[in-house]
């Protein structure tokens, strides 16, 4: 193949070739802090300015471990973290011992209505000072997810949506399914840009 053509094809993020995942591993993503997970994500890490949907069957299976390295990195870059409507109280001493700078962590109270929570997430996604915005929301329609995905595209914020139920055909760019294992958690890519196969990685907790 012509060298120039190859460069053109490789550098075009809108183009994907089925079955040729390695050529798409552009490394433009933000590292998740887990090499195994980076390897199965299309950009070699969390996608920049996109929405990630994490489906976790129940809380407390290590779902936050997935994001801890990214959160530590964000606070080190003087960016802020916003948690919207978490199911339980984020326990500050545990976050501190994990290395998260809690002075840059803002929690929007859990009893916020779904509409207000969505609105908060949208505002956070449009704000460049916010590095990661995480929301725990169930029961939201695909239309709303699409709107959040669009908001994420305009900003530079990584948006993460934790859900307990899987919804078909969600417009989020990356969708991950978590499965608890005795010594960690298994991450399965339900959907990721640039690949049509499910990959899985094991994270030890």
């Amino acid at each position, binding site marked *: 193949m012509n060298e120039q053509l190859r460069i053109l094809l490789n550098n075009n993020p809108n183009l994907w070739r089925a079955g040729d995942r390695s050529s798409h591993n552009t490394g433009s993503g933000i590292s998740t802090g887990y090499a195994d997970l980076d390897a199965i994500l299309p950009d070699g890490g969390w996608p920049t300015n996109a929405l990630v949907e994490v489906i976790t069957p129940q809380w407390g299976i290590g779902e936050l471990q997935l994001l801890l390295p990214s959160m530590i990195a964000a606070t080190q870059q003087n960016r802020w973290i916003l948690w919207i409507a978490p199911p339980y109280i984020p*326990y500050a001493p545990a976050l501190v011992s994990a290395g998260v700078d809690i002075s840059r962590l*803002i929690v929007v109270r859990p009893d916020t209505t779904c509409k207000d929570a969505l609105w908060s997430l949208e505002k956070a996604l449009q*704000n460049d*000072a916010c590095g990661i915005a995480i929301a725990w929301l169930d029961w939201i329609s695909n239309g709303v997810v699409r709107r959040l995905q669009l908001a994420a595209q305009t900003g530079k914020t990584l948006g993460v949506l934790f859900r307990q139920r899987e919804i078909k055909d969600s417009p989020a760019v990356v969708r991950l399914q978590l499965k608890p294992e005795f010594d960690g958690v298994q991450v399965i890519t339900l959907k990721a840009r640039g690949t049509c196969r499910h990959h899985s990685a094991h994270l030890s907790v």
Partner: protein
Amino acid sequence: MNKPTNVLPVAQLSSDNMAQLSLEIKHAQQHALWLSIYFPKLALEALSADIALSADIALSADIALSADTALSANTANQPIAVIEQIKGQRVVHTVSDTAEACGVTPTMLLGSCFALCPHLKIFEYDEKIQQTRLIQLAAWAEQFTSRISLYPPRALLLEIGGSLKLFGGLETLLALINDSLARQWQHVFTLSVTPTPLASFLLASSGQTVVVKQKNALRSALGKLPINILPLNEKRKKQLSNIGVRMLSDVWRLPREDLARRFDPQLVNYLDRALGGLADPHKIFQSPENFEESIELPFEILYNTFILIIARQLARKLVTFLRQRDACIATCFFTLYNNNDLLECIKINMRLPTRDAEHLIELFTEHLSKIKLSAPVTRVKLTAKHILPFATNSAELPITESEHLVLNGNLNGNSTYASKEHLTESKDNIARLLEQLQARLGRQAITELYTLADHRPEYAHYVGQNNRSFMSFTQLTQITQQRPLWLLPDPELIIQKNGKLWWRGPVVVTAGPERIEAGWWSGNDIRRDYYIGINHRGSRLWLYRDLREGLGNDSGSDKGWYLHGLFA
């Protein structure tokens, strides 16, 4: 090589000009120079800003206004008269150009006006509105000099002798004032400059744009003015015209003593003040410390959109006010009225002091969307009391290594600016986001996390809105044991089935115990053994067994197990 030269305009003056300029300045330093700005149609124009705004809203709101108040946005081309009551009669006070063209003049009776101009629109004279506008104009004029006096009802006096050096001479300054006045305000005005305030006012109010720099030239400059402008009653004026005195130049010819004896000693004093023979002190205008402005509408508005139009207008006024003082605010109040009844007072709190009108309106919009007004709005007021000095955040910015490179000239200068701007922006941004969230969700909904030095797990953290800078939070130096990321608001009692712990499935204990026993001094003492467990669905649990007495656990019974957190 063609190098662009960028020299200050002052340096381009020839040496002759320079000499003249320095002479002018030297003269002005010894002698005051008073500029009088006279607004002949202030009573009308002060109304028109509000009229135009109301018309704008009425148009967009599609409100059918009654015949008296129906106005198009363009008020200039309409016959309008401001009327006042004199001895029970309604007399014209000020008229617009269009009305003047029909033959309507001040002091005319209202009946005659309508005979001349049937479509004449009339407004009542409001001294308060006129005075407010004069004060606003004085505040605007503060950019040129610090010595300003109001000369009610419709003139300002500015001492500009001291400002000449700064602004580069009299002509430059006058051009600047003229220009700024024409650009920022829709007022008809005349400017006159003389060494005395009174002479300036007399010349300006009779419509003359004159510059007199020397006191001894005042007589001839004032000479052409008619005696009507003097503050005399009709009888005295007639007496003067009877002896052939029609202009001030005729007055100059009369001997002073005779003038004082036959007419009024006050008249001689007045003329002396005009000519600079007598001191003529004026009260120096002091701009208000607080901002308070309101806009009243001739109709009722129900929709937030229109309230916002007015609020935006007020916010812009506030920003102008702040700019002039190089100040900013952290708090302000929007008050909504229905006639004189207070409907709602909305407090806008900013995390960082600001003077950004759009930001203010953004926050106001969020507040407004939450409230339900019990009645339509007719007046909106904006008040700001605690005016703070304006400070940029640039001082707090750390200079990174790449910026050092930029500063040392390895990259072009523009990028230094851009990167710094961006950093300031990002700091402002989070404050902006939090303000938006607070405005919509309420202050209580936005919380921060803190750690506290306590061994009891539930007292080792704090979730609240306290400003970090006001409280110091400490943490236990080392937490060696594993702590969960999720904490339950209240420990949840765990039931047991068939002798096994059960929380959404059977639980297997994998680690523990960790004994925590503290707080006996505070009444909230705890005595617990913490364990880590996992249920069959994979949730990792932080459990404890309450060891306090009276809970029936002495004999190793199966009671007193609680779930306190989840390892997420």
